[in-house]
């Protein structure tokens, strides 16, 4: 759901476990989606992207799944490490212009 102020949804996982972060997008015409990682005091860092003509894309330790039927996006992180602790945002793009960001999820990795 939507986050309000500082109350970001939080996902807490053990180091070495797999993490799944979910995102619902709003615009059925969006044709491009990006996951960003944002560490405290820094700008968003590009993780992985996917176009609407795909339903899955894999990177190094990360996989993004896209379900256009229910307008849902997920980011899977394999073997989560302490350095993965951050806030994760999904963003959608229509027409190669502005990115629309979803509400973020704070990932906490427990040692």
């Amino acid at each position, binding site marked *: 759901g939507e986050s309000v102020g500082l109350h970001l949804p939080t996902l807490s996982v053990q180091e070495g476990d797999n993490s799944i972060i979910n995102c619902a997008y709003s615009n059925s015409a969006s044709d491009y989606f*990006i996951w960003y990682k944002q560490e405290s005091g820094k700008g968003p*860092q590009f993780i992985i992207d996917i176009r609407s003509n795909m339903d899955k894309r894999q990177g190094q330790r990360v996989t993004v799944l896209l379900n256009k039927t229910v307008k849902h996006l997920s980011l899977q992180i394999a073997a989560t490490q302490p350095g993965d602790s951050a806030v994760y945002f999904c963003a959608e793009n229509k027409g190669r212009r502005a990115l629309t960001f979803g509400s973020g999820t704070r990932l906490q990795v427990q040692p």
Partner: protein
Amino acid sequence: DAGVTQSPTHLIKTRGQQVTLRCSPKSGHDTVSWYQQALGQGPQFIFQYYEEEERQRGNFPDRFSGHQFPNYSSELNVNALLLGDSALYLCASSQGQGRYEQYFGPGTRLTVT
């Protein structure tokens, strides 16, 4: 290869004042977008510049204006600052309007007192 750079890093202003933030895009990029990120929220699109013109604008008042220079760098100007303008201002660059990927700078933290 230099990434997106922004200056200054932090800035404190008083209500009613004006502020100018600066951004240099990633090498090879010619399109700059500006976003405002309030504490605990996702970035909100302000506007995008390409070929020295504003190409798209988000839901922000005219107090927010910008400029793009021939070397593709950009400025964000905010007039008549309000307390609610306190936020992290992010610049993102991309390669032409035909490319989707946007890469962000570290941001400028603006505090309005």
